[in-house]
C-alpha cells in the first residue's frame, strides 16, 4: 500500500514539475523586453552557447561523415553501387544524424553549462537579488539563453551536415576513388529540398528548443545546493538526450512515415 502511495506521489510530482516548466516557459516567452536591452544579451549568449560549440560540432561532423563514407563504401561496393555513397551520406546526415547528434552534443556541451550557470546564480541568490531590484530574471537571464539555443542549434546542425558530407566526400571520392560527378549527381537526384533538407531543419529547430528549455528550466528549478546543481546538470543531459531521441522517432514517423 505504501509503495502504491509512493508511486502515486511520484506521478503527481512529475506532473507538477511538468506544469511548473510550462508556466516557466510562458513566463519566459510571455514578456518581451525592449530590443535595445534584449539584443546585446542575446548576442552574448549566442556567442557562448553557439560559437563556442562550433568546434565540437565541426570535429564530430567531420569524423561521422568520414565513418559514413567508409562504411557506406564497404557495403555499397558489394552491390557495385558505390556511387550511391553520396546519396547515402547526405540522406543520413540531413535527415537524422545532423539534427540528432548536434542536439545530443549541444545538450552535453552547452545545455549542462546553462543548467550549472543558472543553478549557481540561484544558489548564490543572484536571481533573488535581481528580482528585488525589480528585474525579472525570467526575461533578463533565461529568455536570452532560450532564444540563443533556439537559434544556434539549427545553425549548428546545418554546419554539422555540411562538414559531414564534406568528410564523406573526402573518404569516398579522394581516398576510395568514387567518381565525383556521380557522388554529387546521385546525391542531388535523391535528396529533396522540402522533404529532406527542410524536414531536417524543422527537426533541429524542435530539438534546439526542447534541449534549451530543459537546460534552463533545470537550472532555474534546481535545489539551491551544490548537490542540487550537480543533479540538475545530470538531469539536463539525461532528459535532453531522451527527449531528442524520442522526439526524433515521433518526428520521423510524421515526416517520412508515408513512404
Amino acid at each position: 500500500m505504501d509503495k502504491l502511495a509512493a508511486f502515486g506521489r511520484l506521478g503527481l510530482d512529475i506532473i507538477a514539475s511538468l506544469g511548473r516548466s510550462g508556466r516557466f516557459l510562458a513566463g519566459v516567452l510571455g514578456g518581451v523586453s525592449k530590443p535595445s536591452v534584449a539584443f546585446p544579451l542575446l548576442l552574448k549568449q549566442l556567442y557562448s552557447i553557439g560559437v563556442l560549440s562550433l568546434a565540437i560540432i565541426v570535429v564530430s561532423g567531420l569524423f561521422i561523415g568520414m565513418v559514413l563514407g567508409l562504411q557506406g563504401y564497404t557495403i555499397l561496393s558489394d552491390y557495385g553501387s558505390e556511387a550511391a555513397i553520396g546519396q547515402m551520406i547526405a540522406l543520413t546526415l540531413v535527415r537524422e544524424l545532423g539534427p540528432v547528434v548536434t542536439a545530443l552534443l549541444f545538450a552535453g556541451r552547452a545545455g549542462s553549462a546553462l543548467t550549472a550557470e543558472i543553478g549557481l546564480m540561484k544558489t548564490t541568490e543572484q536571481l533573488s537579488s535581481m528580482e528585488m531590484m525589480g528585474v525579472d530574471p525570467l526575461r533578463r537571464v533565461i529568455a536570452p539563453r532560450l532564444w540563443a539555443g533556439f537559434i544556434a542549434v539549427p545553425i549548428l546542425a546545418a554546419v554539422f551536415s555540411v562538414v559531414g558530407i564534406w568528410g564523406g566526400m573526402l573518404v569516398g571520392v579522394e581516398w576510395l576513388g568514387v567518381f565525383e560527378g556521380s557522388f554529387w549527381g546521385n546525391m542531388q537526384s535523391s535528396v529533396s529540398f522540402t522533404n529532406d533538407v527542410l524536414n531536417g531543419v524543422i527537426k533541429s529547430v524542435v530539438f534546439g528548443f526542447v534541449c534549451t528549455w530543459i537546460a534552463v528550466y533545470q537550472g532555474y528549478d534546481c535545489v539551491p545546493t551544490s548537490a542540487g546543481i550537480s543533479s540538475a546538470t545530470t538531469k539536463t543531459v539525461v532528459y535532453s538526450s531522451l527527449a531528442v531521441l524520442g522526439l526524433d522517432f515521433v518526428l520521423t514517423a510524421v515526416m517520412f512515415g508515408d513512404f
Partner: protein
Amino acid sequence: MYPHIEGCNQFARVAPTPRRLLGTGMDTSPYIELRDVVFARGDRRIFDGVSLDIPRGKITAIMGPSGTGKTTLLRLIGGQLRPDSGTITVAGENVPRLKRKALYRLREKMGMLFQSGALFTDLSVFENVAFPLRVHTSLPEDMIRDIVLMKLEAVGLRGARELMPAELSGGMTRRVALARSIALDPELIMYDEPFAGQDPIAMGVLIKLIRDLNSSMGLTSVMVSHDVKESLSICHYACIVADGQIIGDGTPEEIKAHPSEQVQQFLHGHPDGPVPFHYPAADAGQDWGITGRSR
C-alpha cells in the same frame, strides 16, 4: 547606446524628489504594515500571527536569534515569499496580492542587501553597482559613472571598481552589495546583516552611512542585525523576533528597559534563559541512544 537622454526627467529618479522630502515631515502612517502574518515552511510555523508597523523615514532594527526568520521577514516584505495568511502592506499596496507587473514596479522603490551579498559574478564591481541604473534609467554613460563612483566612495571601495566579485573579501562583497542596493536611491532599504564580517572601522563607516542615508534622504530603513549595541545606537525603533512572535518592540530605550525576561536574555547574550539557543529537537537522551538507562 543610450539614445533616450531625458536629462532632467530621469535625473529625478536619482535625486530625492521634493515630494519625498516633504513626505517625511508630514506623513506619519507606517511605511510597512504586517497584520496577523502566518508563514510556515513545511510543518514548522516560522511566523505565527505577527503584526508589526515599520515607520516611514525611520531606521527599524529587527533582531533575534539565528534561524528565527528575520531573513524570511524581509523576503515576505519584498514579495519573494507569500504568507499563508495575513496582509503585508508596503507603501499602501498589499504585497501578496500584487500582480507580477505591479510587484516589479514596487520593487524598484526597494533596495535589499542580501545576507550573502549576491553580487553578479560575471560583472565587475563597477558594473554590479551600475546594473540597476542601466536597467531602470536611461542616463548617459558619464552620469552613470559619476553615480557609481559616488556610491562606491560611500562604502570606501572606489579603488576596487575594476575587481571581479571573486576577487573580493567577504566584507568587501557586502559593501559592494550595499552600494548596489542604494544605487537607485530607493524609498525603502532592507539590510540583511550589514555589519557581519566588517572590521571596526568599516563598521563605523557603515553605521554613519546608514544613518546619513536615512537623515538626508528620508529613507525608510529596515535593518536585520545581531550586533545589539550598534543596532540600538542607530535605530529609532527596534523589535525582537523569537519563536514566531515579536517578543519585544519599541524605541531603543524601551527595549533596553524591557521587562520581558526573554528580551533581556537576548540583549545580554545569556546562554540560559527562556529563549532557546537550540533548534527545536527531540529529547537529547533519545538522540544519543541513552533512553531508559539510569545515569
